[in-house]
């Protein structure tokens, strides 16, 4: 049933001589879908193409059975929360929602009902009379989700939503996304591995425009099993270990250092441990020739 899927076939996109996306094939089904990749991997380009804010290059995209070229139809069934957004600062929250609801072509009665329902859902109902400029970063993101859901979209596209949020707001935001994903496709693009781990069952990894991985989180973890180690070492050993292994985390206690690192062969004196998604992601990037990780930790530890 294509009605509940996004099907991307052979998608490429170039900006002059830079290939932002290169032959991407992807099927995204209902629920949370994580798009992981470093900055500049092509995530935002893909998000913008899906939100009809950028023309696609080569390839085909169908969103819930609608070809991406049918811009108006696509905009009717998608909600978009951009990476860097705000609203008119002097508008009250409910006014901003009303304005965006009008632009979405929602009738007055329905618009008011949806606004109240969504503001309640994102815990902003009691702040509805406050001006947008008075909101904290986290509240603004929640308002962002509410506005993106105004037209009750089949697809919600969320680009780097947790950057800059404090841990409490980040957790609250992730939970909100999970709730929302029960009834639609939610594409979460991020370079923060923790966000994906906490929310997504299926993920894709993009690097330099190419799709490196497309599958479940469990499969990705399985691929890393037996290749993640922990070791307690003396502080003086750290430079040597850094050269030898790809370290994914490290913390210090007095003169002792607790390291977590990747290795394809057994390491004497180190214990094999359960991989987390960050380990698996790093390992996957490395296996696929992303060598810049050697210089230090990647992702967010």
């Amino acid at each position, binding site marked *: 049933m294509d009605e509940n899927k996004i099907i991307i076939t052979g998608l*490429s*996109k*170039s*900006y*002059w*001589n830079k290939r932002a996306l290169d032959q991407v094939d992807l099927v995204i089904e209902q629920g949370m879908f994580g798009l992981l990749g470093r900055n500049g991997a092509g995530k935002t380009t893909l998000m*913008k193409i899906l*939100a*009809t*804010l*950028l*023309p696609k*290059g*080569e390839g085909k995209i169908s969103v819930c059975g609608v070809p991406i070229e049918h*811009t*108006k139809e696509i*905009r*009717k069934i*998608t*909600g*978009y929360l*951009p990476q*860097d*957004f*705000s*609203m*008119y*600062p*002097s508008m009250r929250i409910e006014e901003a929602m*009303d*304005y*965006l609801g*009008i*632009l*979405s*072509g929602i009738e*007055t009665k329905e618009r008011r009902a949806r606004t109240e329902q969504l503001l309640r859902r994102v815990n902003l109902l009691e702040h509805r009379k406050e001006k947008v400029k008075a909101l904290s970063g986290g509240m603004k993101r929640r308002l962002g989700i509410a*506005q993106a859901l105004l*037209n009750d979209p089949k697809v919600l596209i969320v680009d780097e939503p947790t950057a800059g949020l404090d841990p409490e707001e980040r957790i609250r935001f992730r939970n909100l996304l999970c709730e929302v994903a029960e009834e639609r496709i939610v594409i979460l693009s991020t370079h923060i591995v923790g966000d994906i781990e906490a929310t997504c069952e299926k993920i894709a990894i993009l690097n330099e425009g190419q799709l490196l991985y497309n599958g479940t989180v469990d499969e990705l973890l399985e691929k890393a099993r037996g290749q993640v180690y922990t070791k307690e070492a003396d502080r003086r050993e750290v430079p040597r270990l850094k050269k030898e292994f790809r370290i994914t985390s490290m913390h210090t206690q007095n003169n002792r250092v607790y390291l977590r690192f990747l290795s394809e062969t057994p390491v004497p004196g180190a214990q094999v441990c359960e991989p987390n998604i960050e380990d698996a992601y790093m390992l996957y990037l490395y296996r696929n020739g992303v060598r810049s990780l050697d210089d230090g930790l990647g992702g967010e530890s």
Partner: protein
Amino acid sequence: MLFWQEIKKLAGSVVYVLFVAVLIMELSSQGVFSFHDKLEEPQPGENYGIHNEEIPELVMPAAIKELFQEYTWNQYTTYPIGLYKNVKLKEKEKAQMAEILSELTGIKAERFSVEKDAELQKGISEHEIAPRADLTYEEFKACMERADRLLGGGSDYAPDALIGFGKVPVTYEDARVEYQLVKDKDQFTGGYARLFSDYAGVMAMAILPVFLSVALCLKDRRNKMSQLVYSRKVSSAVLVGVRYAAILTVVMVPVVILAYYSNSKVWNLYEGMQLDYLAPLKYAFGWLLPSAMVSAAVGMFFTELTGTPIAIAVQCFWWFLDLNAGYKNISSSYGLFRLAPRHNAGTLSRFRVLDFTSNFDRLVQNRLLMAGLALVLVVLTIFAYDWKRRGKIGERFKIRSVFAAAPDRKNKSAA
């Protein structure tokens, strides 16, 4: 609904408060809120002013005297492209001008070519400066045309400007005819509304709306709201059209109110007379709206296309040219391409209603042309906005994005 939201956005902005303040200050400085001159019915024996007619016997001596004066000081006033220019001739050109003066007056050219101006004045008496006895009007016009060309054009000696030298006193009969026209056609209030429109057009409507439209169009980007708006279902045509209508509404509301405020000041001067109470409304929409339309449309088009406030510079430049083009003919100027037509005539000249009625068709053509141009710019704005929404041009003008897909197409065709 969207219309009211856009109105709220505009009317609540600082730019709009400034717009209204500047509008009131500019119009107030021109005295349009304190009209008190009553147009009286002409009585025999009064001075009824002057008007221009191209009567050779009047035009030729006046024009030749003026040319001689300017030659004497070697300073000629011209408006070559509408802008004021003070022309000084070089020696060779001075000699050519002396030839022209010689042909016009019959005085030998050498007498004009005395090097020092002081000696020149001593050499030729004022009485000698008169048309040659056998000078025909055709010869005179040909000489004046040469003089105009020598000055680079735009002088008072250009064939179509010579009428300015034919000053004829208005007769009692003519004054009565004009008074009757004011009474019947203008119904008095029309003349005052016209004067209001002259000032409001040139000082406000031709320039101020551009600031509002630029501010509105940049508001989304400045508030990082563009992508939220772009990704909505609303069509670009509806959004741009509604925003344009909202700008014109907030511009015209204070203009109409001020037009009525200005006009109402004279209503009690004409008690018992038939007055046209709709005159301020007719002139606001017929005369001023097209100027506001074009100014707002320039603002929208260039702002959406470039993502910068460059439209302000564009409109200011056009306005400056137009202002100077009208400087020469401030009393009436209805050129087809005028941004703000001029008809600056006080009550004492009976609103120059004959001049207005005889130029009415040209005025209508001009206003329709400006309104049409504005609508064309709005259509182009819709295309620019839609391109931007689809990522074909960047937030700031990066036309290269339009071609960004080119390599993809190339690859595709190769495949």
